[in-house]
């Protein structure tokens, strides 16, 4: 099957996906380091392990489709095109940050790229996504809204209200659940009556599908399919991507509620390693090429850290700016 990879996507796109996966991985691991050094503070939720979801999804969307996510969203923003250095500066709380240092890790925002925010209230992004979908439909822009969220977020009332609303108003929302099996330390079956998240849409006449969230190409295909459906029908659709975070919930969480065996099993499916392997097998890249892409990612991230370090703090006057305008 892998020899047909280029029937799915051109080689350059596949290489770009690898590049993005590497960049996300390096970025997150660097964040962990900067957090330990005290340069990044507050809550820091890293994405390592889940990269295939952001990378595969974003590749399948149009550049002007809206994207919203929760607080584990560095990768979503970067893959969409946010400059790593401005993301890093944001995490440092610097004036050059994506949100001038006011948002931090959980509140990235880049409207030029239609990246409409990281939200730190679990479930908070659902109705906002529906609203964006209404606006874009109202204006006949042909866009859809991709709304990312975690498995545990589906137990918030907003999930249901928004799903119902999007169906009743016929809104182009592609709900993408990143099911990493845990909400902090609570395994999905301990908080959800039906742990199969994609089956929770049956009460709303919203179609849904499950996909391997460790495989960027599978995600790409599923999102393409879902996005097409959403665009054609102007109706919501839900995708559940089965994935895993390699780290704890946030930097404050040692993650003891997961067994080493479980962690190792998932690490054996590392989306970075596996995508690389498939590219090599399909003859699209050799190891040297992969190493070069990886080195390039390291360089970008190092530069981002340097930029963040050297950037100025916000002026005190900024504290009263941006509230009413």
């Amino acid at each position: 099957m892998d020899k047909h990879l280029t029937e799915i996507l051109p080689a350059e796109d596949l290489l770009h996906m690898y590049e993005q996966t590497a960049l996300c991985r390096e970025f997150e691991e660097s964040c962990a380091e900067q957090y330990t050094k005290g340069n990044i503070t507050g809550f820091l939720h890293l994405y390592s392990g889940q990269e295939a979801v952001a990378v595969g999804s974003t590749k399948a969307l149009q550049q002007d489709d809206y994207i919203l996510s929760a607080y584990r969203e560095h990768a979503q923003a970067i893959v969409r095109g946010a400059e790593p250095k401005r993301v890093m500066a944001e995490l440092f709380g610097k004036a050059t940050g994506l949100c001038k240092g006011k948002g931090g890790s959980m509140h990235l925002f880049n409207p030029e790229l239609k990246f409409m925010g990281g939200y730190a209230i679990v479930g908070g992004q659902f109705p906002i996504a529906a609203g964006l979908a209404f606006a874009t439909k109202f204006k006949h822009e042909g866009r859809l809204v991709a709304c990312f969220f975690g498995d545990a977020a589906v137990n918030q009332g907003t999930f249901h209200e928004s799903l119902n609303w999007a169906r009743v108003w016929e809104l182009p929302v592609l709900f993408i659940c990143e099911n990493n099996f845990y909400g902090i330390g609570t395994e999905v079956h301990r908080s959800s009556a039906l742990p199969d998240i994609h089956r929770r849409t049956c009460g709303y006449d919203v179609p849904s599908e499950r996909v391997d969230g460790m495989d960027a190409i599978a995600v790409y295909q599923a999102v393409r399919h879902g996005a097409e459906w959403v665009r054609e029908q102007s109706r919501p659709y839900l995708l559940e991507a089965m994935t895993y975070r390699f780290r704890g919930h946030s930097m404050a969480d040692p993650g003891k509620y997961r067994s080493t065996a479980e962690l190792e099993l998932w690490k054996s499916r590392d989306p970075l390693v596996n995508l690389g392997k498939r590219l090599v097998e399909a003859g699209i890249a050799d190891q040297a090429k992969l190493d070069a892409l990886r080195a390039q990612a390291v360089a970008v991230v190092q530069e981002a850290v340097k930029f963040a370090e050297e950037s100025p703090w916000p002026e005190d006057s900024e504290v009263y700016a941006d509230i009413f305008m």
Partner: protein
Amino acid sequence: MAEMTYRDAINLALKEEMRRDPLVVTWGEDVALYEGSFKVTRGLLAEFGEERVRDTPISENTIIGVAIGAAMGGLRPIPELMTVNFALLAMDQIINHMTKIRYMFGGQVKLPLVIRAPGGGGSQLAAQHSQSLETFFMHTPGMYVAVPATPADAKGLLKTAIRDDNPVMFLEHELLYNSKGEVPDDPEYLIPFGRCDVKRTGSDVTIVAYSRMTILALAAAEELAKEKIDCEVVDLRTLTPLDSETIVASMQKTGRGVVVEECWRTCGLGAEIASRIYEGCFDVLLAPVQRVSGLDVPMPYSRKLEKLCIPQVADIVAAVKETMSGKY
């Protein structure tokens, strides 16, 4: 100028702004086909169609959240909460999201949306349907709060709200909908936010009020005039921004103040107004500021008890007399 009700003035403002700007849209529970449970949206569906005037499921948090998203996407939504009591189901979207989005995203997005919400007590609707929640909104930075007392103010403030690029909480009083007054025909009649309106000038005591309390304050002032007590009535019109200057200037003149609030007394906005007066007029104050407030209890149903919980004209009269009593 035409005489019309507070309800019709709001309706007119909505229609004028929807005619002016095709991006203005409105939705809420039963606002379209049913024309609003207080009939404020009468005629909107017929004139503007079902794309712009929309009924929603009973999902208050989502009613507001969808408006936030739509505003981010370039529309100017006016979500209606059937009554302000249901804002408590939407505090997450109102406070955690609406009031923070501009700021936490570094000022990169406009958020032009107006939440319309009728509220207040006095119709025996009991504890869950009679709340005056204005202090919650005034306490929270990141939204404007308008509280019109008259039909003209309702029109002028709502039009300003709709044209503003920041979120506005527009609080209507259920007992004012049938009240009448002269309303300017001018479709450009806009009342700037953050300016009190001195609705009656006087020299003895300043009464600060808002929304329906302003009407009661004016009635109290009439009564007191018969006893030769000359009250100035300052109508706040917007709680955020708050026009402290006008209040303080009036107090500098009179030296005595009464604040009237329909909300619960403890930590009510009356305490804020009083504090600003003390801070701004410490050396000229002749008596402590009197607060006339809603009682600190859930609203009882029985009309006999309910009346005790909401400020009455007689309470304002008594408070003014207290400030004049010279006990200090």
